[in-house]
């Protein structure tokens, strides 16, 4: 293991230590087989980080020609029920979106009206869209990931909620998927393993570059992150693909903070400490990338 990789492991381990919440994480260098992490097989609620796999499972049906990114759907008033995430819930019903734009909003603002449109599109060509996503995850080796809902009704959850009805995953599964996506962006063979083309892998990567609230890459200046966030009641998560300025994929990163206190003893909201940690994690990956 090269020295800078060891430094990265030590740096992230140090960051994770002594936090007032549990952190499971995994980082994979793209194409080298190097993996570091901690508690990365712990089952956690995925919240919106699951949308990376939803995005890829949907794109697999675009690749087969069963769906087109230009297919259009209309937002109805009923779709707003229970939705906490995204921007479309605040707009008037009747807006028409292409599948391409629904996917982009699902990834940028985590819009759960658009998530419903994406599942409806999958459901137009598969009898059980949730099962299609679960099957796709199993095919891709995400053996600890279970999609259990179209979108979680987080407004109905308490801080101490059970995981029983929620989509669950692990840091290992998510970093594994992103590592495959990174390779798929540069290699047609790797893209085919995801049941995609290189072009569709690049579409997925670019959709993740448009995240409205970046966390891993928020303080980076020499690398970028194509990333996706997850927000639960007591959990925050961030998964991402670190990219060189040239666009070359460098590393897949997955981090899940669990049992975050609503506030620290100082009065600072617990979530603020987590976002600081995610920013530091991104900077640690940037430091590693510079030393390669």
């Amino acid at each position, binding site marked *: 293991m090269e020295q800078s990789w060891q430094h990265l492991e030590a740096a992230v381990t140090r960051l994770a230590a002594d936090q007032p919440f549990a952190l499971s994480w995994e980082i994979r260098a793209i194409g080298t087989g190097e993996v570091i992490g901690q508690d990365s097989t712990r089952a956690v609620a995925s919240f919106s980080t699951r949308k990376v796999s939803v995005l890829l499972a949907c794109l697999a049906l675009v690749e087969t020609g069963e769906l087109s990114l230009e297919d*259009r759907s209309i937002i109805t008033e009923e779709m707003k029920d229970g939705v*906490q*995430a*995204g*921007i479309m819930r*605040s*707009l*008037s019903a009747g*807006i*028409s*979106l*292409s599948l*391409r*734009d629904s996917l*982009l*909003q699902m990834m*940028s*603002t985590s819009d759960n009206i658009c998530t419903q449109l994406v599942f409806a599109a999958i459901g137009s060509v598969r009898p059980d869209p949730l099962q299609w996503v679960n099957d796709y995850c199993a095919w891709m080796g995400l053996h600890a990931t279970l999609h259990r809902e179209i979108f979680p009704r*987080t*407004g109905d*959850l308490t*801080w101490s909620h059970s995981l029983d009805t929620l989509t669950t995953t692990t840091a290992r599964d998510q970093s594994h998927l992103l590592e495959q996506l990174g390779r798929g962006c540069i290699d047609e063979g790797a893209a085919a393993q995801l049941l995609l083309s290189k072009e569709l892998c690049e579409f997925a990567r670019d*959709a993740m570059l*448009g995240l*409205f*609230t*970046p966390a891993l890459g*928020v*303080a980076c*200046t020499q690398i970028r992150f194509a990333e996706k966030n997850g*927000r*639960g*009641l*007591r959990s925050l998560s961030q998964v991402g693909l670190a990219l060189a300025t040239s666009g070359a994929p460098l590393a897949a990163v997955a981090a899940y903070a669990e049992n*975050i206190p*609503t*506030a620290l003893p*100082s*009065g*600072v*909201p*617990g*979530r*603020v400490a987590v*976002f*600081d940690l995610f*920013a*530091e994690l991104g*900077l640690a990956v940037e430091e590693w990338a510079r030393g390669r």
Partner: protein
Amino acid sequence: MVAELKMLRLEECVSAYPELRFAVGAAGSAGETGSAGSTGVVTASHADEPHDLAGTGKLLLGLTLAHLGEGDEGLLERPITVTAEHRAGARTGTLRLMTGELTLSVDDAVNLVLSTGDGACVLALLDFAAAEGVDLLAEAQSLIASLGLHAVQLSGLERDESWGEGLIGTTTPAATLHLLRALGTADHPEGRPAEPPVVSSETRHRVHAWMGKVFEPAGLASALPGFGPKRVPHQTLSGWELTAAGAQRGYSSALSLPNQGGEWVHVAAHLPPSSAGVLSPRDVSAVLGTLGLTAYHWTRD
């Protein structure tokens, strides 16, 4: 290292962030002079120093359109189309990521401007106003004059590109605070408004509805208490904290919070570009978030 949030008292923010310009005001506060010209300012620092609108121009744009909607029934419900040209000129917001044309109401477009700083919606709204024969700049200038916002200087409209503002110009934290107080609550303007009030109840309702739906705010509201999707009640604006423009022109932010008595406390702030120790959007939010959280705790005292 990223900057960390601090737990301060309101008066400590002045020395902790010497470059930060801000004003905190409340109706009937102890610091209020009680004169006709009272400002309701509780604490301030460099509050009369002019700065680029830098994120607060969208509030003036929304207010102007809401005001115009009073004299033209149905204006805010009319459809506008966000085109590829609008998206190409947008430097902020999420509609620029999309591909197809999108038709939405004027009300919804302003909502996206205030809640996400959507530049594509701004350019579509500017085209809409021009097609309707409305001189938005002149209307906005007239409105701010009526409100007595003499420190606000509006010099133009965004044209070929938009940072989600619509209006270009300068203001001061004191003037933004004055504006927030003029908006007061949906039912009542604060201070001693002109009779009849320049900003009607209907317009205040509209603006408050827009300011209550801001998507994942990164400025003054970024560190308010709450977890998951829950936050303490507040109103704010989508700012420039995540934009490249902020590094050149600074970061302005606005926040309104109810205190325990149900009266609103308002905060207007501007962090100049290249402030010491502020290197990333996370650092910007640490400074502005500290002030916002401090103001929240002050409302609980």
